[in-house]
């Protein structure tokens, strides 16, 4: 019951934030440009064009009516049209977002699988060679510029070892002879669902380097957070109590202690996830990855206002959704959060 209350509360808050954000983006889209109609029409508009656009966009109506229309459009999936490409923004995003999502998902998975265990061990064996080594990794991970890392990885695995491809999502061969049927547009999922294992293998190989480059910073983050909370938790009385009741050290570290130490790490990784959706632009460029980062950069450079606003909105939705998921996850991991 308490847990239900807690989840309910979080959901109501998430909805509240969503509505606030929609109002905010509405104002940015319609009010900030001194003349939205002119911006809509493009450079060097005629007077008639502007008048027509004003009517078309309903800019003569009162603000709340405009907001209502804006919300209706949003909810029916109409994000407007790009000024630059004159394409519906939604269809653009449908092609770019899944590529990025796939990359970021895999990157985060790597971060969780490598960063958290290393953080646990490093915290448990504070001061040991393992701890020093792990801390070196995490310092390097935080401070190394991501483009440099990407280039180094390409140099090593493509040029020197010839093990992994240089970039792109699949090889030309696969694109031509074993094309992936677009369903979710995340290649790993689509190829697996359709049983296209050649494409699956190829897509996986192409993912390794960019995902690794993307994961470096989150790995470092996960190591640092996990290490410091583990050190704290391992000093708790209940850990002593568990140890002197004879429970195996492995269970003490990875079950009993980690359960109490993992929440801050998950929260940090959640933020890193949202950040990576657009922040991975350098990686996308280096690995010729047709993702959202590239799309947004072009929009910013071309002052493509509707695209910028739409992507902002989508990022916010992701941000809120991730937070909500983390909050709910937290309620299951650490039951103390649900009171108070």
């Amino acid at each position: 019951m308490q847990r239900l209350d807690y989840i309910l509360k979080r959901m109501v808050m998430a909805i509240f934030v969503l509505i606030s954000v929609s109002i905010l983006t509405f104002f940015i889209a319609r009010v900030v440009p001194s003349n939205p109609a002119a911006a809509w029409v493009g450079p060097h508009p005629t007077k008639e064009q502007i008048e027509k656009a004003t009517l078309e966009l309903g800019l003569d109506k009162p603000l709340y009516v405009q907001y209502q229309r804006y919300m209706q459009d949003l909810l029916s999936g109409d994000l407007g049209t790009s000024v630059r490409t004159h394409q519906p923004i939604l269809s653009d995003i449908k092609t770019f977002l899944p590529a990025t999502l796939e990359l970021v998902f895999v990157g985060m998975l790597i971060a969780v699988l490598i960063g958290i265990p290393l953080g646990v061990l490093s915290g448990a064996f504070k001061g040991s060679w393992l701890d020093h080594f792990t801390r070196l990794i995490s310092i390097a991970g935080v401070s190394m510029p991501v483009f440099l890392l990407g280039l180094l990885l390409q140099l090593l695995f493509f040029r020197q070892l010839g093990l992994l491809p240089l970039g792109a999502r699949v090889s030309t061969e696969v694109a031509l002879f074993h094309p992936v049927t677009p369903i979710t547009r995340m290649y790993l999922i689509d190829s697996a669902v359709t049983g296209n294992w050649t494409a699956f293998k190829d897509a996986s190989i192409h993912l390794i380097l960019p995902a690794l480059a993307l994961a470096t910073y989150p790995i470092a983050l996960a190591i640092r957070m996990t290490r410091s909370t583990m050190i704290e938790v391992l000093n708790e009385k209940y850990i002593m109590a568990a140890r002197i009741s004879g429970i195996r050290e492995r269970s003490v570290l990875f079950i009993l202690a980690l359960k109490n130490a993992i929440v801050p790490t998950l929260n940090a990784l959640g933020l890193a996830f949202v950040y990576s959706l657009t922040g991975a632009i350098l990686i996308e460029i280096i690995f010729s990855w047709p993702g959202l980062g590239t799309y947004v950069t072009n929009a910013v450079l071309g002052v493509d206002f509707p695209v910028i606003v739409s992507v902002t909105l989508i990022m916010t939705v992701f941000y809120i959704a991730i937070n909500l998921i983390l909050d709910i996850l937290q309620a299951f991991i650490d039951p103390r959060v649900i009171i108070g």
Partner: protein
Amino acid sequence: MNTITKDQSPTLIIEDLTVAYRYGDLLLDAVRDFSLQIAAGQTYGLVGESGSGKTTVAMAVMRYLGDTGVVRAGKIEFDGRDLLSLNTSEMRQVWGAEMSLVPQNPLSSLNPSIRVGEQLSEILRHHQGLDRETARVKTLELFRMVQLPDPQWVADSYPHQISGGMRQRVLIAMALSTTPCLLILDEPTTSLDVTTQASILDRMSELIIDLQSSILYVTHNLGVVAQICDRVAVLYAGELVEDAALEDLFRMPLHPYTQGLLDSVPHLGETKDEVQLGAIPGQIPALGARPEGCVFEPRCPLAIQICSQRPPIISTNNGRKVRCHRWEEIASGSISAREIPREFKKEGTEITLDQYENEHGDTILDLRDVEVHFPLRRSIREVIITEPARKVKAVDGISLSLQRAQTLGLVGESGSGKTTLGRAIVGLVERTNGDIDLFGISLPPALSRRDFKTLHQLQMVFQNPEQALNPYLSIGASMRRPLMRLAKKSRREADKEVANLLKAVQLPPDYAFRMPNQISGGEKQRVAIARAFATNPGLLVADEPVSSLDVSVQASILNLLNELQIEHETTMLFISHNLAVVGYLADVIAVIYLGKLMEVSRSQDLFKPPYHPYTEALLSAVPIPDPSIQQGRIRLKGDVPSPVNTPSGCPFHTRCPHFLGDICVSKKPVWQMDANGNRIYCHIPVEELGAKQKNMIKQE
């Protein structure tokens, strides 16, 4: 108590153990040359105050001293094995299976994010190789064994969802789950209320007999030791000072420290008119500042020249051990640290409560139907279904009056509302209903609306002296402030007054220039008391002023409060959970339960029937530091109900051993008066109540 079979070899042998802690480059000995033997099935009490090293000994036996602890010398033999030579993975075979620990703080010792039942099942699965289902069944069985109500519900709960008493039962069940041959209990009941403590101790003594395990019982509480142990070792400043069978120790303590310790706690039923507490002067030396010679020398009233050399531990011919140069003189009775023999100073004055109240005339403080209710935050679901906000009824209609120069003791367990009432009087929390009159003038609920004169008249001493003093102000500056601000004294006058006050609380005048972190907890409490008396207040509210202090320091603070109060004719509201302390210091005692008064009695009458059924249970639960006293045995079922849903009718009806039936549930009791004018809130007529009840404390 169980019998000890002589022919068995001891379960645990500690020989000349010295344990040190590392502080930077320094190694400071926390325990020196400590020896002890626990026979199979024996319950050994290890008694000491803070800094005595008792927990260090326990953790050394457990081989869990942490990163900074080092065993410098000595031997620990457990079940024939040399424990100190085992490595961690070998210890893991011993931990839990052969040796287990019930730790002190039950909340922090349970993993907050794992269900309680799961935590116990894990141990069972690990040590006994049980499968999930069998482990679950066995868990419930163990929970039943420690008398947890509703074991299934407890098993499915997280630690923060169950009460402190339940948590401690869970930890005991965990420790006993593998029937270890050595059980170490580290202050297992210290954080619990007396009534809970009593029923846990009862169950524990029964289990100890059943299991035949050896027990090392670590505590500072002599009363608990008297109840549960066969033999007692007394530690002071890291050294074993005395080791004797239980009865011997209490009947004839041989070490001046043990003598002082026994004299410094008031016994249940003793009052300040009858007995003076023997306070041990000074304080426990800090780890780095222990004397070269006898560790007790700076505080010992019997110290002589030779005491500057360290006394050896001596085994007397009747199986006792003592570390004192003068033990033979003490044993022969020619000298004693018990300067004031513990005997009655005078017979209690035989006046009734109403006579007492009339005699003292002026009512200083008058409370009428005082209520403090805190609204609870509603959850979203409750807002949606428009449920009204629930309230915590911390204080629920209390009427009381205090006469001039009287001490009223307010006694209750945690959650009774005693602290809230004190705070409502001082204005730290605002009452939600009722009147409070000081000197006949109504006090506004909010502190900000009270005038200077009131602030001047009303002072408070808190439980924790650490929080009462501003760490950035010197002691002198802290004490000067109320004098200058409230009593409107000049700086010169105030300084003079500070010097006088320091003298009055037996501190040297140069303490005015010290900072709070340069003095000990007991000294801080003295300063806080001096400051409270600085403005010569009409009413002093003292909220658990000694409960954060060590026993040997408590007595001097109680004596001090008593002297100052008599001298200043201050009226005092003394709030405490400790019935013996309240009974000692107060003239009149009010017993509070769930925000309501249960009984108001003259203190010398409180310990004789008739009493309120709740008082009766409290009295029978207090552990008495004297094995020769027979105590009545009344145990309350369950926990104190939540102050949100207080029981209807008589608030005590869910746990009352004399429960009458429907009338207690449906109708509020009335106040009745016994022959001595004491007031009892119960449906049972006082005569009948008196006839049903026995004297709870009987000297043999």
